[in-house]
C-alpha cells in the first residue's frame, strides 16, 4: 500500500505560506521535497535547500565548444583544406573570422542553455505522479503546493501529515 503512494502534498494560497511551510519541512529534516508554484520564487531555493545548479558551467562549456569548433572550422577551411588568398590577407586572418566564430559561440551556448535545462529538469515528462491530484491543475494558475515524497527516508505518513497541517 505504502509503496504506491508517491508523496504527500499540501496546498497553499500565498507564496509566503509556501515558503514558511517549506522552511519548517526542511527544519524537520526532510530532503525529498519539492514545491510547485505558478511563477518562480527565489526564496524557495533557500527554504527547500535547493543547491545551485551546474547549468551555468555547462552553458559556459557549450560556449567554449562553439568557440573552438568555429575556430577549428575556419582554420581547417582556410589554412588546411582550401587555402586561398583573398584581399591580400593571410590564410588565417583572425579579425575577419571573428563574426562567424562569435556567432557559433553564442549559438552553442544558447542550445546548451535550453536543452541542458530541459535535460536536467527531466523534461519532456508527459506523466508525473503529481498530475494525479485533481487540484494540482491550479499550480499553473494561482495555488502553491508542497510535496514530501514517500521515498524520503524520514517519511512515516502520520508525522508527515502533522508537519504539513501545522504549516
Amino acid at each position, binding site marked *: 500500500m505504502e509503496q504506491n503512494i508517491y508523496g504527500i502534498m499540501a496546498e497553499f494560497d500565498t507564496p509566503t505560506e509556501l515558503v514558511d511551510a517549506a522552511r519548517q519541512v526542511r527544519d524537520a529534516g526532510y530532503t525529498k521535497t519539492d514545491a510547485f508554484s505558478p511563477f518562480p520564487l527565489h526564496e524557495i531555493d533557500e527554504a527547500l535547500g535547493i543547491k545551485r545548479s551546474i547549468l551555468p558551467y555547462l552553458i559556459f562549456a557549450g560556449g567554449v565548444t562553439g568557440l573552438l569548433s568555429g575556430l577549428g572550422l575556419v582554420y581547417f577551411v582556410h589554412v588546411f583544406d582550401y587555402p586561398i588568398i583573398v584581399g591580400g590577407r593571410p590564410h588565417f586572418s583572425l579579425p575577419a573570422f571573428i563574426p562567424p566564430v562569435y*556567432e557559433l559561440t553564442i549559438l552553442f551556448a544558447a542550445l546548451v542553455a535550453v536543452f541542458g535545462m530541459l535535460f536536467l529538469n527531466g523534461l519532456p515528462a508527459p*506523466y508525473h505522479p503529481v498530475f494525479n491530484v485533481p487540484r494540482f491543475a491550479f499550480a499553473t494558475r494561482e495555488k502553491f503546493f508542497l510535496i514530501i515524497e514517500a521515498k524520503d527516508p524520514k517519511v512515516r505518513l502520520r508525522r508527515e501529515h502533522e508537519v504539513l497541517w501545522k504549516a
Partner: protein
Amino acid sequence: MQDEKDLQEKLRPAMIEGDHSFASVTDKISDVTLKKRTPFHWFIGFAIAFMVAQLLLFSVIWLLANGIGVWGNNQPVGWAFDIINFVWWIGIGHAGTLISAILLLLNQKWRTSINRFAEAMTLFAVACAAMFPLLHTGRPWLAAYWLFPYPNTMGIWPNFRSPLIWDVFAVSTYATVSALFWYVGLIPDLATLRDRAKNKYFKFIYAALSWGWRGSARHWHRYEITYLILAGLSTPLVLSVHSIVSFDFSVSQVPGWHATIFPPYFVAGAVFAGFAMVLILCIPLRHMYRMQDFITHTHLVYMAKVMLATGLIVVYGYAMEGFFGWYSASQYEVFMVKNRIWEGPYWWSYWLLIFCNGLSIQLLWFKRFRESEFWLFLISIIVSVGMWLERFVIIVTSLHRDFLPSSWAMYSPRVWDWTMFIGTIGFFFTLIYLFVRFVPIISIFEVRTLLPDANVHGHHQDFEENVNEVEYTYDRTDPPNE
C-alpha cells in the same frame, strides 16, 4: 492592504492597473486563447492579411520561375528592394530582443507585459527578413545550402572573410536563439493553457508543447538560470546581428556604404524601427483584447521615450555621414553626400527621410503627444516608413552614382518588387494573427510576479538568522509600521 497599494503606487508607476489576483490575471490572458468564440474582427483581419500574403507566394513563384530580372535591379544598382526589405525587417525584429533580453538584464519590470508579443514580432520579422537574402541571390536553390559551410563537389568552401557569410551565420543564429528564447518563455504559459483548456484536442496540443511542465521549484531554479543566461547571450547577439548586417555595407568600398559609423548607427536604427512596430502592434491589440490593465499608458510612454532616444542617435548618424563625407576629403565621398542631399535625382527620398525620422519624433518631447495613442500610432507609422527610406537612401542612392559616370543609371522598382514587399507585410500579419489566436499574447507567469501578492513576506524568527533575507523579503510593499 490599501496602504500597501498606495505605497507601491508612490514608489513606481503602475505596471498593472485594476484589481488583479493570480487567478484573474491568468484567466484574463488565457481566455483570449481558450475562449470558444473567436472575435469577428480577428477573422476579418486574418482574412485580409492572408490574402495579402498570397501576393508573396505568387511573387516568389514568379521570381523563381524567371529570375532576378523580374525586379527593377540592374547595373549599377544590383541591390535594391530585396536588401532594403531585408534590413528593414531584421531591424524591426531587434526591438523584440531588446525588450526581452536587454530590459530583463536591466531589471526593467515594464518589459514583462510586452515581451511575449515583442518576441513573436521578432521571430516573424526575422522570418520575413531571412527570405530576402536567400531569394535575392541569382540561384536561390543553390544558395540555400551553399552559404552554409559545406564544400561542393569541387572542394570549394565558402569564404569566411566575406561579410555575406558573416550575415548567414548572424541571421541564422539570431533566428535560432530568438526562437529558443521565445519558446522557453512560453513553456510555463503553455502548461497553464494545458491545465485550463476544456477542449480535448487543444489540451493535448498544449500538453505536448509544454513538455510536462509542472512548476516544480527545482525546475524554476534551472529555468530562471536559463532565462537569464539566454538574455545575457541574446544581448551581445542582437547587437552583433545588426552590426554584421551593417558590415555588408561598411566593409565594402562603395561611397556611402564604406563608413565606420554604420554598426552603432544601424543598431540604434533597428531598435528605433522595432519600437515603432511594437507600438503599431500593441496600440490596437490592447484595445481589441481589452488588455489595458496590463499594457498600460506607462508602457506606451516608456516605449515612446526609447523611440525618441534611439531616433536621436539615428539623426546623429545622418549628421555624421555628412560630416565624414566632407572630412574624408575624398572626391567620391564628397560627391556622394552632395548627390544624396541636393544634387542627385533622389534628393526627395533624403528629405522625406529627415522628415520621417528626424522631425516627426521631435513631437515626442512633449507629454501631450507621448500620452496620446493616436499620435504615437501615427508617429510610429511615419517612423516605419522613414526607416524603410533610410535603407533606400543608403542602398540605392549610393549605388546609382558610384565611381565611373559611364555606368551611372537610375533605379525604379517594378511591380514584382512591390508585390514581394507588400506580400511580406501580409505574411507578417498573418503570423501575428495566428499568434494572437493560439498563444497567450502576454507572459502570464511573469505578470503574476508583478502582483503585490507575489512577494514573500519575511517573519520575525528569520530576522535573527539572516538579516539580508528579511531586508529583501520585506520589500517595498510592506507597510513600514508593521
